[in-house]
C-alpha cells in the first residue's frame, strides 16, 4: 500500500502541490489526471526521487520513506518511466538492458552470446519482437519506449510510475502495455499512470485521482467517473482574473501557414489576422512548440508553406529571415533559449535590433541604446538598479518582461509567444496580459501558446487546440471555455464530433 499524506511542494512563488493526500492499493492502477500545471508531474517527480517534498510523508507498506535521488527510489522498489529516455543510443539493445552487470566469461570478456541470450529471453518474456543486437539509435521511438518500460518492470518494483509512457507508442504497442499492466496488477504491483489521452486513462486505470492547481479535487473509480464529470473537476470554478478588454481585430491575415509537416507536425495549417490573438492550447508536448518554432523558421519542415503578410510564401525559413519579415518569437525557456544570463539587461534587450543602434564602424551607440532601453525599463517597471546589471540576477518575472521587450523592439507584424507566463508571478502576469492586448490593438497578429487555459479564455479571439501533432479543434469567441479546451485536449475530434458542435 502506497500512502501519501499532506505532500506539499513549492517552486519559488509557485505552489505546485498543495497538501495532497492519496492512497494506492497493491494490485491497482491509479491514474493521475489534470490540466497543465495541475501538479501531476511534480507529484510523480517526488515519488521517483527526482524531487523532494517540502512537507508531508510517503509511506510504502507501512514504512515511511525518504528519497534523495532516483537511486534511493529504486532501492525502495519504486521504478519510473518518463518521457525522456535513459537508453544509451550508441549501444545495442542487449547492452543497454544489462549495462551494469553484463555476463562475463572466465577471461573477463563480456559473454556476447550469453548477453544476447539473456536479452532474447527477456524480450520474449515480454512479448517484444525486437532484436537483441539492434542499435538503439536505429530503433523507432515506440520500441525504445517499450524497452524503457521493460527495464523498469524487470526490477520487480513495488510501485511503477508511468509518466506519459504511452506518448510514443503506437496503438498496438499501447495494447501491449495494457496487457503488461494487467499482469502487474495480478502480481500486486501499484501502478501510477499519467496520460494525456483520456481514453487511455479509462482503459488502464481502476481509479483516477484528479488534480487542479496543485490540489487533489477528486478521486473515484474510473467506472464511476464519466468524462464530463472528470473535465469539470479538472477545470473547476475559476477565479475571476482581470483580463484586459479584447480589442477588435481586422480581417487581413498577418500570417498564413498551410500543410506544415515534420516529425512532430502532421499537417497543420493556420491563419492569424492582424490584431487577432490566436490561442494555442492542448496538453504539453502535442506539437505546440514545434509549430511556433516552425513559424519562426527554427524547426525543420518536411513540407508546408508560410506566408507572412505580403511577403512571398516560403518553404524554408530561418530566424534571420523570419525577423526580417516581421516575425518575432518569444521562446519557452527564457534561461536557455531566450536570454544571455551573463550579459546585461541592455545587451539582452537590444540583441535583436543591433543594426538600428550602430553608427559607423559597427560601434554601438550607447546614447541611442539608452534612449531606447531606459524608457522601456520604466514603462515595463523592470525592477533593477540599472540597465547594466546582469540579467541573471533578476527575478523570473522581470526577466520575462525584458525578454518580451526585446522582441517588441523588432516591431513585428506577427508575435509568437511560447508560454510566456509560465513561472511568473501573478502581478507580472497581469502586466504581460496588458502588453499583449496593447500590441494586438496596434494590429500585430499574436499566436499565443499557453498551458493555462484560463489565459486563453480571457484573451484569445480564437483558440486552436492541438493533440498528437494536429489541430484537434478550433474554438471561436463564446465557444472558448476551459471545459471546451480541456475536452479538446484529451478527446480526439471525430470520435466526439457530435458532442462538440
Amino acid at each position, binding site marked *: 500500500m502506497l500512502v501519501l499524506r499532506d505532500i506539499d511542494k513549492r517552486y519559488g512563488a509557485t505552489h505546485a502541490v498543495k497538501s495532497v493526500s492519496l492512497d494506492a492499493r497493491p494490485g491497482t492502477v491509479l491514474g493521475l489526471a489534470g490540466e497543465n500545471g495541475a501538479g501531476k508531474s511534480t507529484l510523480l517527480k517526488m515519488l521517483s526521487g527526482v524531487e523532494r517534498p517540502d512537507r508531508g510523508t510517503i509511506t510504502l507498506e507501512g514504512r515511511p520513506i525518504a528519497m534523495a535521488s532516483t537511486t534511493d527510489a529504486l532501492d525502495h522498489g519504486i521504478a519510473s518511466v518518463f518521457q525522456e529516455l535513459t537508453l544509451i543510443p550508441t549501444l545495442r539493445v542487449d547492452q543497454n538492458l544489462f549495462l551494469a552487470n553484463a555476463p562475463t566469461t572466465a577471461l573477463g570478456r563480456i559473454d556476447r552470446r550469453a548477453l544476447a541470450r539473456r536479452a532474447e529471453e527477456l524480450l520474449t518474456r515480454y512479448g517484444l519482437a525486437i532484436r537483441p543486437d539492434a542499435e538503439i539509435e536505429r530503433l523507432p521511438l515506440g520500441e525504445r519506449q517499450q524497452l524503457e518500460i521493460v527495464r523498469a518492470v524487470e526490477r520487480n518494483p513495488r510501485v511503477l510510475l508511468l509518466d506519459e509512457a504511452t506518448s510514443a507508442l503506437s496503438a498496438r504497442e499501447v495494447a501491449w502495455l495494457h496487457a503488461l499492466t494487467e499482469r502487474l496488477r495480478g502480481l500486486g504491483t501499484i501502478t501510477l499512470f499519467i496520460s494525456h489521452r483520456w481514453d487511455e486513462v479509462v482503459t488502464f486505470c481502476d481509479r483516477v485521482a484528479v488534480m487542479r492547481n496543485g490540489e487533489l479535487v477528486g478521486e473515484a473509480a474510473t467506472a464511476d467517473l464519466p468524462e464530463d464529470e472528470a473535465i469539470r473537476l479538472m477545470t473547476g470554478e475559476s477565479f475571476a482574473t482581470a483580463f484586459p478588454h479584447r480589442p477588435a481585430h481586422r480581417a487581413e491575415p498577418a500570417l498564413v501557414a498551410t500543410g506544415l509537416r515534420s516529425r512532430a507536425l502532421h499537417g497543420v495549417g493556420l491563419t492569424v489576422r492582424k490584431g487577432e490573438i490566436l490561442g494555442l492550447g492542448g496538453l504539453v508536448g502535442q506539437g505546440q512548440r514545434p509549430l511556433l518554432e516552425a513559424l*519562426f523558421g*527554427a524547426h525543420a519542415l518536411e513540407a508546408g508553406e508560410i506566408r507572412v503578410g505580403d511577403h512571398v510564401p516560403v518553404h524554408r525559413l530561418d*530566424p*534571420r529571415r523570419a*525577423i526580417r519579415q516581421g516575425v518575432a*518569437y518569444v*521562446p519557452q525557456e527564457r*534561461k*536557455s*533559449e*531566450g*536570454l*544571455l*544570463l*551573463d*550579459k546585461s539587461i541592455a*545587451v539582452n534587450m537590444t*540583441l*535583436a535590433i*543591433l*543594426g538600428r*543602434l*550602430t553608427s559607423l*564602424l*559597427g*560601434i*554601438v551607440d*550607447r546614447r541611442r541604446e539608452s534612449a531606447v532601453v531606459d524608457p522601456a525599463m520604466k514603462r515595463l517597471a523592470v525592477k533593477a538598479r540599472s540597465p547594466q546589471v*546582469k540579467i*541573471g*540576477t533578476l527575478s523570473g518575472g522581470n526577466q520575462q518582461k525584458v525578454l518580451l521587450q*526585446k522582441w517588441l523592439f523588432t516591431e513585428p507584424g506577427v508575435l509568437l509567444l511560447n508560454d510566456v507566463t509560465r513561472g511568473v508571478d501573478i502581478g507580472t502576469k497581469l502586466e504581460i496580459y496588458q502588453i499583449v492586448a496593447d500590441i494586438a490593438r496596434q494590429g500585430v497578429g499574436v499566436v499565443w501558446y499557453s498551458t493555462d487555459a484560463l489565459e486563453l479564455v480571457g484573451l484569445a479571439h480564437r483558440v486552436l487546440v492541438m493533440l498528437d501533432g494536429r489541430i484537434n479543434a478550433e474554438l471561436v469567441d463564446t465557444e472558448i471555455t476551459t471545459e471546451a479546451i480541456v475536452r479538446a485536449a484529451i478527446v480526439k475530434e471525430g470520435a466526439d464530433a457530435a458532442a462538440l458542435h
Partner: protein
Amino acid sequence: MRHDSDAATIAGRSEPAGRPRLGHHLSQSAAPIVLVGFVLALVVVGNLMAPGFAAPGNLAQLLKLAAFMGIVAIGQTLVMLTGGIDLSLAWVLTAAALVFTDVSQGQNAGLLPALAAALAVGVAVGAINGFAVAKLRISPIVMTLAMNNIMQGVALVYSDGTPRGGVPEAMRTLTTGAIGPLPTMVLLWAAATILVMLVLRCTRAGRALLAVGENPRVAWLSGIGNTRVIILAYTASGLCAALAGVLFAGFSGQAFLGMGDQFVLPTIVAVVLGGTSILGGRGGYGGTAIAVIFITLLTTVLIIENISPGIRNIVFGGVVIVALFFYRFLQNSGRSAS
C-alpha cells in the same frame, strides 16, 4: 549539437554548454585583477634575484618580447570566446613569415606586397578553419590540428626546407626600435589591445561574438548569423598569427622553420588564465594580455635564475594547475556569497 559537443570535449565534462552559472562569472572578472597582483609580485621577486630587473628599460624589453605572443593571443582569445580553439597558429605563423621574407627579398620596396601576401595566407587559412567549424561542423581541435599539419607541409614545400629572402630594413627598425622610452612593438601591441577590447565591448560584432560563445541557440534565435561570426573569429585568428609571424621575423632578422611552435600552447594557457571561459562567451582580451605578460615574466625570471628548462616546464605546468584550483575556489566562494 555538434558545436556543443566540441565545447564539451574541449572543456571536459565540467559544464553543459548553454547553461551558464552565475558564480562562474565572478571568477572571470576577478582573474585579471589577481593576475595583475601576480605580475607585480613577479617583478618584485625578479628584482630581488637580479637587481635592475625592475628597471624601466628592462621591463620595456620584456614587454617587447611579450608583444609577439600577445598578438597571437588576440586571435586565440577571439576563437576561444566562441567556444573553439586554434591549434593551427604555429605553422600559419611560420608560413606567413616565410612568405614575407621570400616576397620582400629583404627590400623595403617589397615590404607592402610581402605584408599583403603574408596576411593573405593567415586570412585564407583562418577562413577555411572557420568554414569547416561553422558549416561542416568539424571539431575545432581536429580541424585546426589538421590545418597545422597541412600548413607545415605547405611551408616546407614552399621554402624547400630553407627559408629564402630576408627581412626589409624598415621592418627590422619597426620591431626592434623604440619611440622615446617605449619600444615600437609595445606601442603596437597596446594599440592592438585597445582595438580588440573596443571591438569586443562596444561593437555589434563584439556583442554577436560573445552571444554566440555564451549560448549559440539564443544567438541564433535572436537573428545573429552564427556561421558568419565563427568564420570571422577564425579568420581574425589566422590574421593575428600571420601578423605575429611577420613581426617576429622582423625582430629575429629572419624567418626560420618551427618559429611558431612556441606560441600555441602558451596562448591557450594565457587565454584561460586571463579569465576567458573555455566554454566561450565570457571573458575578454584584457585578462589575456595580462596573462601573457605574466607568462613572459615567469619564464624570464626562471631563466635568470638559471633554472633548467626541465624545472621551468614543471613550474609552468604547476602554475596552471594551481590557477585552476584557485579559480575554482573563487568560483565556489562567489557562489556561496551570492
